[in-house]
């Protein structure tokens, strides 16, 4: 009886608290404008996701605030990440959307980082960046067996040292799995890499499967380009028969390198974050709103039409993935630096 009463009281108090918070939130966000600061220029991948979300997320926030997207470009979105950490007010009205690979750069002690990744508040992500390694048929690398048996290093295209994909995932595959690879870096983007591969200058490369599938569809369908390996813990839906990189890891060390360098960064590649110190109730409201948006019918209709892939990540999962990379011990950290930047 006593127990029941306590339970009831607890529930009532809980309900009151929740309604108080939502009522608060409703009055808080009402008539306000939320800005999503995108670290890349208008029209790019990050911008596209942010703009679609901005058109639907307001409905799922109590008080129906309007949401606008602003572009703060520069230094691979580092400028916007630093801005969000140092300048933006933690009032729930400024959301950052930049390259999550920068969290990894912090672990790697790269210059220019002015934030502490673990202090951001994580709202969640609309999608991940699961990478696949693909080659042209003309290069002869159509399976892992052929790749491993290649006598000469296989030429793969990169964009810049420190980029999660293609450069980091290629360097880690080379170091952890001992694959014969010659990374040629400096291409302006994956589109240029595609062109170079089709022209025979490169054998292939590795970047997000979603984008690869969208832009290289014809060649993948005809078999002129073949995905031979994927950098994810569980096979992707349409790559069921393509082997996982982590399964080729012979040592515990190699496995850890792949997990910290390829798997985790995929989860936090495209995060939506709040400045450190944002009140928890606002964080929770926005977390819930994002997840609801990602299953919203109108939103889904629009992403379907725009061929935007979704793979929702919750705020908790995002935070955990970020925390994961900070657990690398110093020896592995040093080894990773050696692999990625030497």
């Amino acid at each position: 009886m006593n127990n029941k009463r306590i339970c009831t009281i607890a529930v009532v108090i809980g309900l009151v608290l929740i309604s108080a918070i939502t009522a608060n939130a409703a009055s808080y966000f009402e008539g306000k404008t939320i800005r999503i600061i995108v670290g890349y220029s208008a029209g790019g991948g990050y911008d596209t996701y942010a703009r679609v979300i901005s058109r639907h997320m307001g409905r799922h926030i109590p008080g129906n605030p309007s949401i606008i997207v602003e572009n703060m470009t520069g230094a691979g979105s580092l400028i916007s990440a630093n801005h969000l950490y140092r300048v933006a007010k933690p009032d729930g009205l400024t959301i950052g959307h930049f390259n999550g690979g920068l969290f990894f750069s912090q672990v790697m002690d790269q210059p220019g980082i002015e934030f502490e990744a673990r202090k951001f508040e994580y709202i969640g992500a609309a999608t991940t960046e699961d990478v696949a390694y693909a080659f042209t048929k003309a290069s002869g690398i159509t399976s892992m067996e052929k790749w491993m048996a290649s006598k000469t290093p296989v030429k793969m295209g990169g964009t810049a040292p420190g980029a999660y994909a293609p450069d980091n995932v290629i360097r880690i595959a080379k170091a952890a799995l001992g694959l014969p690879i010659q990374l040629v870096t400096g291409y302006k983007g994956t589109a240029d890499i595609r062109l170079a591969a089709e022209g025979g200058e490169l054998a292939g490369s590795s970047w997000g499967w979603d984008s690869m599938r969208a832009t290289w569809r014809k060649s993948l369908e005809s078999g002129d380009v073949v995905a031979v390996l994927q950098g994810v813990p569980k096979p992707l839906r349409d790559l069921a028969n393509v082997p996982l990189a982590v399964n080729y890891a012979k040592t515990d060390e190699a496995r850890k390198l792949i997990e910290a360098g390829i798997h985790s960064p995929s989860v936090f590649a495209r995060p939506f974050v709040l400045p450190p110190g944002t009140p928890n109730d606002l964080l929770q409201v926005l977390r819930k709103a994002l997840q609801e948006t990602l299953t919203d019918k109108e939103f889904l209709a629009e992403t379907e039409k725009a061929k935007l892939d979704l793979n929702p990540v919750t705020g908790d999962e995002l935070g955990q993935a970020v925390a994961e990379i900070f657990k690398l011990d110093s020896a592995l950290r040093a080894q990773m630096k050696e692999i990625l930047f030497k």
Partner: protein
Amino acid sequence: MTEMIGAFFSGLYQIFTWSTLSLMFLGIIIGFAVGILPGLGGPTTLAIMLPFIVKMKAVEAFAFLLGMAAVTNTTGDITSILFGVPGEPTTAATIIDGHPMAKKGEAGRALGAALLSSLVGAIFGAFFLAAAIPVVRPLVLTFGSPEFFMLALLGITFVASLSGSDFLKGLISGGIGLFLATVGLCPMTSVQRFTFGQIFLWDGIGLVPITIGFFAIPEIVDLSVKGSSIAGDKIGKLGGVMQGVKDTFHHWWLVIRCSAIGTVTAIIPGMGGATTQWLAYAHAVQSSTDKERFGKGAVEGVLGPGASNNSTLGGSLVTTIAFGVPASVTMAILMGAFLIQGLVPGPDMLIPEPKGHLALTFSFVWINVVSNIITVGICFLVLNHLVKITQIRGSLLIPFIILLVYLGAFAEKNTFQDLILVLIFGILGWVMLRFKWPRPPLILGLVLGPLAENRLFLSTGNYGLAWIFRPGVLILIALTAIGIILPILRVMRQYREKKNRPTTQEPLAHDVPKTLRWKASTLFTLFLIAMIIWALWQSRRFDFRSGLFPWAIGFPVLVLFLVQLLRDLTLKEPEKSDEDKKELSDDETKRRTRAIFFWIFGYFTAIWLFGFSVGVPLSTFLHLKIGAREKWSLSLILTACAWGLIYGIFDRILHVPFPEGQLFLWL
């Protein structure tokens, strides 16, 4: 073949529906405004418009977007000619001769020439796209990194033609451009080069702030010192719009060649209108028999870039459609539009329906043609009114031109530091103009430098040194060698001719007393030498890959500089030519120059302290009321206009994220 022809006309047929045409018209109107305002780039607007195309049919969507993209270059030329401020980064070359024409009272003629050559360029580009469709894939795939590198090198040799009368100064200027291109993260190693620890410099020095500062600030100074309207009292003395139209036909063959330069070059990924305009301008200079006229209002200097920056779209579309490799930012956004429409750029686009989308591809050709015809038609209707801007009192225009300068520099990347770059390069541009250093080579070096460096390392990374022996490379080496040797021969011939008849060309130098100006120009050379030595000293810690390019450019430039210093010290200053003779006394000129620089800096400081939406109206008002002593009513009305533009359009409607004023952050 019949299928292709069928698709060609089906493409035309498709755009003539009410919905498609009206959407195209809407796109044109938006693009019109975007092109005229330097602060609004084509790419940003396209991105903002992307969501609207979700519900459109494919041909409607592209009529809307391509219509918008197609006209920005045309209307951008208008701003360049009238104000000397590049309306778009792709229309900077039009300033070099277009604005001097406006100053001579020939704004109408310049605009007429720019518009008609734009139309020719656009049509040329469109039909090139159509003609290239069957052969484009194999053709482009024969080009690898080595060929791209050689093409960039070939482009750099155009510096010679852009150098004007002073070949050595032109080479140095181009060298400085190439050197400035190395600022930022090294693309191969991610090492920071010359960034002063500033993150905003990681991506290099932006082309937009440099171009704006470089060309617009000297014009503002000039306008202010002159103290009259842009055209002075010369308006109407020389031919109007129809004269420009006639010029286009008179130089028909040049317009076609420059269109071809624009289209063909744009196929190369990384070479967009920002590059092709200068190549076309250089070609216009090179092919003229009277090179002295250029930079002072030669109509060919308007026709060349006018044609090429519009024909570029056709070439860029080739790589975007056939490979899904966007040649420019605009194209990258169009690619997004393809995906939204469920289309994958690539071979499918070149196969006739029902298997592919060839008719749609051909409709792009027609959209490009039709939207340009409409734009030019509209422009001709309003042209005579536009020309009147050049008759407005300079003091009323100046605050708005300064506003366009700062807004244009900021809004490209929403970076406040770009305003500082505008100031630095504005001063540099002004000094270079005063001491007769040609500016276009610097810009050409800046745009081609990264392409050359990237592709050189990619070539070596992929092929070792064997790339040099690829047949395409050998042909391009031969062409480049010709591009280097011919100007040298030309200079030598000129030198010999001068020697043979020394009295006509070189004025009686020893009669001219040494002036302060002579010393100042030497000081400027010394200053640049110090900069380059400092930069080379900074680069001593670079590894081979990061350092190769800065060294390969820096040391030869240093040597050229020393030669120039020697010239400065030994050669006497030639007598001032006619146009240098001013009606104003030297003291008055100096006073006005100081005053306008005070206002330019003051404007910047006001924006920095109070933010755009307070700083802009404040400095506009102060300049009008105190600087120019205008009437209260006029000052207030114009201030309200400036405020409305900044706050109403850019802040409230377009959500340009202006930074808060520093003062408010301190408080």
